[in-house]
Each structure stands twice: as C-alpha cells, then as structure tokens.
C-alpha cells in the first residue's frame, strides 16, 4: 500500500515510500490485483491492539459488500468510474467500503478519476441549515484572532457575512483553551446568530473535554469539534478515544439545538497527523487519513474537513503533493459517507503559493466539495497560515455556478446583502450588522 502511494514527503520521512518510479508503479500494478476481501482478512494494524481497526471490521456491512466482494482493487476502480455507479449506489454501499479499500483504490487513480467519482457522491447534513446539496458550495467562516479579542472576532465575522460566507459554520480556533474565554466566544456567537436570525451554526474549536464541561455549564454549544486520527495511538495523542467521542456526541445531541437536523459533530483530520505523533504504526499517511474517516462517520458529523496543507512540508512538500492529497482526502471521505470540506491551505515553509491554491480551489469545486474555509484576505492572523478567502469563495461560486446553502442564500437576500440573482450588493454603512458591531 505505502509503496503504491504517489510520492509525498511524509512517506519518505517515515521510510515507507517506493525507492524508484518503477517500484512505485510496480506496487500499483500489484495492488490492482489485490482482492477487496483481503482488506477484511489482513488488517494493516492488529484488531487486538487498535480500536479503530475493531471499529472498521465490526462495522463492516457484509450484506451490501456482497455486490462487490469478487472485485480486485483494479476492478473496483473501473466499477466506480462506470455508468453502473451513481449517487444512490455509493450511498447504499458506504458501510461496505472500508478505509483501506478506498485508500487502495485511490492510489491507482489519477486526479481526474478522483474528481469524477467524488462528483457522483452527495452527502447532505442538517443542523440549522442544509449543507452538501449538489450545486451548492458552503464556507466555514473562520474569524480567528491572535488574542481572542471579541470585537476583533466579530469584525471578521461581519466582513465574512457581507461577502456571503459563513453557511457551513462560524467556527473559531481560540488562541487559548481557557474555558471562560471559550464560553465568552460561544456567547458572543450565539447572540449574533440570534439577533439576526442567521441560518447557520457556531463552533469554537477546542478540545472535546472542554466543550463537554461547557455544555454542563449551559454554554450555547451548536457543533462539537475535535481533531481525530486514524489510529488509536493518534487519538490518544489528541487526548481522545471512541468512548470519549461518543460521550461528546451524546452531550451534543442532548442539547437539541439543531432546528432542522441533528448532525452535531465537526471533525478535522489531515495526512501526517499520525506520523507527527509517532503513531502511524508503519502505515502510510494517506491510509491513516482514510481510517480517520471511519472514526468520523459513526458520529454522523455535520462537517468534516482535512487541513491538507496545514500540517507542513515534511508531510506534503509542495503544491503538487498538497493538491493530490486534497483530492484523495475528499474522494475517500465522500465514498465513506462523510460531508467532506477542505481547508485549501498552506504554511509559509511549504513550496507553494496562491496560484497552486487557486488551481486546487477550482478542482475542489468541480469535485463537489461541501465547503471550504473563508478567512479575511486568506490570511489567518492567529494560526499564521493561508487558507481561502471570502473572495475565493465568491470566485469559485461564480466560475462554477455554485450557491450557498439554500436557507443561508435566502437570508442573504432578506438582509439586503444579495440581489435576486444572488449577486452581492455593496452594503450601506447603515446596515444593521454594522450598527450591531458599533454598539
């Protein structure tokens, strides 16, 4: 599996990658002949020592699998691309697919294959709005601030709303895990959302244990966030387990805050997180990543995104590797039934730039990505990396004819922020949102 993976720095760092171009393609040719049933009989991390493996094996849908049980990896690719497979078929088989099967097939696919099959998928989730419908592209408004200054955060939110961003979630990475601070951010978000009746949900991306404590203190929590990985050891390094995630999930459900649905979880993942925690167990980083999706899907999340270019050049070195990984992550997540978004992003020590991100943005738009990030001017001043901007979201929506979530689209019109064609209107300085921020 590792040797068949398109080259990336993280697998080289782990000492897992093919030594030559020839060896890599030879490994892909071998992999294409591997029967899918092998992935059920020969696990990559032992069943006894890893709860993620147990989750994958115990949760496998044998009945649905019978339709593809005779396939090899190569046949699996051909079948996915064929006219026999459509949206419904993929949805029916989502628990027949295991992470290792979809990771394996992605390794022998070209970028265009990953895009075309992703495009067949549709994963729709609901909380206070509907995310993931075909023809829609949502954004997570990410108004981070280096000192968690409430006014600073609120200003970036207003900026984003005026630019039509924020339907997936208004989600803040706090600079500190301090519970009182997190509580104050949650309250500010809740007040704003209620005051303007915005059909969206909020989230402060802090550790689940902090969020559970805050729920017990009656904090207004919409979505519950957690970073997760594809091995038990990775999750241990994140301070979580399946049991703790289940506890967080139940705590979120108990609040009943979703108005039209109850997808309450928000997960982030990313290739390289297992290796960086020295918890990859000899498994290549893309397969580890796909296994994280098996964890995510049992909690019926509202949102899942890979932070593809964030983890650093020692895992994905340049624009080519980041692009490839993003397409793989989106493809694997969608096949496994997840509402995949993507943090199309990079750090300043990666060999890439805005042009590479523009290319990837267009590719993700065509692949049917559920949501991207919306950061003022693409510059996250707290996390010090570059993601997609509000303008970038407008660009890809205009280019590909995509619209925000339907409820949010209507809200933008009612607020006088867009015209009846969905085009942004220049907002007057007396708009109530501006009065609110200045009050």
């Amino acid at each position, binding site marked *: 599996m590792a040797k068949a993976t398109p080259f990336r720095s993280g697998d080289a760092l782990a000492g897992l990658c093919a030594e030559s171009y020839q060896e890599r393609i030879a490994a892909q040719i071998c992999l294409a002949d591997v029967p899918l049933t092998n992935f059920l009989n020969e696990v990559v991390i032992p069943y006894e020592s890893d709860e993620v493996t147990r989750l994958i094996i115990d949760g496998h849908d044998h009945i649905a699998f019978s339709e593809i049980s005779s396939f090899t990896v190569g046949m699996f690719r051909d079948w996915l691309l064929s006219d026999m497979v459509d949206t419904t078929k993929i949805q029916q088989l989502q628990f027949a697919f295991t992470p290792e099967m979809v990771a394996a097939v992605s390794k022998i696919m070209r970028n265009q294959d990953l895009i075309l099959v992703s495009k067949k998928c549709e994963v729709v989730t609901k909380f206070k709005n509907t995310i993931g419908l075909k023809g829609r592209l949502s954004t997570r408004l990410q108004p981070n601030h280096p000192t968690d200054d409430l006014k600073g955060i609120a200003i970036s939110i207003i900026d984003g709303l005026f630019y039509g961003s924020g339907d997936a979630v208004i989600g803040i990475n706090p600079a500190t895990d301090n519970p009182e601070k997190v509580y104050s951010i949650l309250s500010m978000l809740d007040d704003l959302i209620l005051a303007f009746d915005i059909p969206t949900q909020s989230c402060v991306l802090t550790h689940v244990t902090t969020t559970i404590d805050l729920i017990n203190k009656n904090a207004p929590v919409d979505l519950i966030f957690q970073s997760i990985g594809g091995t038990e050891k990775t999750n241990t390094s994140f301070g979580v387990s399946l049991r703790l995630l289940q506890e967080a999930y139940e705590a979120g459900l108990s609040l009943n805050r979703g108005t039209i649905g109850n997808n309450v979880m928000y997960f982030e993942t990313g290739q390289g997180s297992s290796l960086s925690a020295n918890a990859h167990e000899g498994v290549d980083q893309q397969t580890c990543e796909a296994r994280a999706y098996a964890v995510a899907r049992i909690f019926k999340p509202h949102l899942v995104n890979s932070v593809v270019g964030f983890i650093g050049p020692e895992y994905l070195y340049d624009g080519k590797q980041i692009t490839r990984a993003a397409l793989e992550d989106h493809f694997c997540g969608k096949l496994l039934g997840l509402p995949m978004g993507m943090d199309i992003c990079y750090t300043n*020590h990666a060999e890439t730039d805005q042009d590479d991100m523009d290319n990837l943005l267009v590719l993700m738009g065509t692949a049917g990505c559920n949501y991207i990030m919306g950061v003022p001017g693409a510059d996250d*001043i707290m996390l010090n990396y570059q993601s997609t901007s509000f303008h970038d979201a407008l660009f890809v929506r205009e280019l590909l004819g995509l619209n925000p979530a339907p409820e949010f689209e209507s809200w933008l019109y009612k607020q006088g922020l867009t015209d009846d064609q969905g085009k942004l209107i220049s907002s007057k300085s007396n708009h109530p949102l501006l009065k609110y921020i200045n009050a």
Partner: protein
Amino acid sequence: MHKENEIIKHDSWEVLKKHTAARIALGKTGVSIPSNQNLSFKLAHALARDAVYDLIDKKELHHNLDELQLPFLFLQSCAIDKKQYLQRPDFGRKLNQQSIDIINKEDSNISYDICINIADGLSADAVNKHAMPLIHLLIPMLREIKYSIAPICVIEQGRVAISDETGYLLNSKMSIILIGERPGLSATDSLGVYLTYNPKVGNNDALRNCISNIRPEGLTYEIAAQKTIALINEAMRLKMTGVCLKDNNNFITN
C-alpha cells in the same frame, strides 16, 4: 475614461480596520480582490518565503559573542540544505559528525548549568534580529544567579530537539534554544525559546517549555528574558521542564 472608484467597490466598513490586523474590507472588483490588495498580500508572502531561506549572519554573532566574552561553537545539523531541512525534520534534530567532533574537543570533565543554543529554525531573520538583544539581557541575569554557562552553540539548520544533543554532550543540566519560528504574513521574525531540563536525545516536546513570539512588536526582550529566567529557576528547583512546570506556575504571565 473610468476612474478607479467606478471599477472597485469599496466596503462601507473600512473604518473597522483600525480594530483588527485581519485583512478585512478589502473591497472588490467583480468578485475579485483589487490589484493593490493582491500585490500587498503577495509581497507579505514573498517576505515570509525569503525569511525561511535566509542564513544566520555568523560574522555578526561572532562579533557580539566576543563582546560578551562568551566562548561559542559553530555547529551544523545533518540536513545538507534548506530543502532537505524542510522535508526531514529528523535530520534537523541531529548534529552532523563534524559538529560532534567539535564538541568532543571540549573538556569532558567540565559540567555546566545552562547550555544556550542559537538555531535558524524556520526564520534566520528572527535570529539575526532578536537573538543577540535577548542574549545581552539574559547573560548578566544568569551570571548574577551564578549559573555556569556552556559554550554557546550556534547551529545551522537546527530544530528544537537538537538542543538535547548539544546539552547532553556539554554535560549541562538544562539546554535552552533560541530559534526562528515559522514566518507568518504579518511577522516573519518571531523568535521562540525552548527550555529542556536534563537534555538527552529522544526527549519529546511535552518535556519542554516554550516562550513564543519574541520580537519588539510581540513579546518584548525584557519580558522574554524575565520569563526565561523564571522558567530556568523553577526548572532547577523542580528538576524538570514540560507540561507539569507550566500548569503549576501561573506566575509566568505577562
């Protein structure tokens, strides 16, 4: 003739810019960002890229360390160039053989309290600007408490954990490293300080303490020096650094 303000739609909330460093109210042409904003972003990125590939100004450091009458060693990690350094953090955590030989020429019977390292990390710019001003404040404070100081290790293409190896080889109770942090668009010259008690190869990051964002516009030299000394004193008392040290000692705040 079209005027600029006919083409570009300015935002009516530009006045809010004064409350945040975020790139808000950029305006738009069509759905895209105006030329001046586009180019100012690209310039910030270019500065950050250059900072990653900058080199330590060894001549200047040499001069300054002489002035403080501090012996020093110029060392290198196993990473042969920046490209390899970025892809192989494991190489950046190890001294090359030549550097090990240099340290081994030191008298192995002498032990020290503090081993100070200076490494380029991801921004030599940060090191060139801020390492010496901080050292200038730290050294008199350390000397006053009578901590013995090992020869200063100036390390090219080093990562934080390389201070485990230098500290160990130089028989030091603690190793601290001043290192360039990953450049952002708003600041390319943030310096970080990491402290490790009982340095030895294989220590993980949970065993260290960190002081971040040291630069005149961020955490000032004076506060950074005070925090460093407070952490050193506390680490010497408890004989440890890491998560425990941080949790129990909220006195180390701004």
